[in-house]
């Protein structure tokens, strides 16, 4: 799956996107654990991060599939 990093998360992880390969049946929670293993810099802000899967906000137990687009969304400030 493709993982996109935005704003503060992009700065801390020092990348915009990457491909992650998780085993079939993995959830958003599993993806987050893998993300923190690869980018421990994100640990401090992880409690405030929300995730979207294919443009929809996802729960931590949502299942992921090959080809999904997951986004790492730090707290937002539009307007």
């Amino acid at each position: 799956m493709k993982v996109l990093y935005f704003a503060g998360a992009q700065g801390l992880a020092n990348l915009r996107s990457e491909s992650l390969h998780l085993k079939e049946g993995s959830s958003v929670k599993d993806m987050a654990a893998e993300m923190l293993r690869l980018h421990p810099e994100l640990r401090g802000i992880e409690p405030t991060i929300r995730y979207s899967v294919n443009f929809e906000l996802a729960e931590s137990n949502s299942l992921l599939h090959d080809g999904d687009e997951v986004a790492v969304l730090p707290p937002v400030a539009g307007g």
Partner: protein
Amino acid sequence: MKSVRITRYPINPAEVLALVGDREAGGAVLFVGTIRRRSEGKAVEGLTYEVYRGMAERRMREIEEEVRKKWPVMKIAMAHRYGQLKVGEVSVAVAVSCEHRAEAFEACRYAIDTIKRALPIWKKEHFKGGAQTWVKGTPIEA
């Protein structure tokens, strides 16, 4: 012009207002958000907005549906800018037309409040002297 739009080009509030023109409407409310020159006491030179475009446009269309369910709206238009903006520039505009003004005010207020809480948009403040920082924000809401 689309009634819901994420754009890197300057927003003209008059164009957003014109999009909600309707002969059945008794009034229209227009909200225009601009870049303030001070933030928490510090002098700001400008802001950079980052947006997750595909998701933001989808969420904006959902906000339009939510507003239409809650109020008898004739037309609604929303535009949010991204990229680098200077003090005084327009970052967001929302226009709503209704038969009566009370619901137009309420619907417009709901739309801009939801835009701030539920769209994947972030802003980085550029202060005089060169310091930059992401605005703290709040976890994105469904």
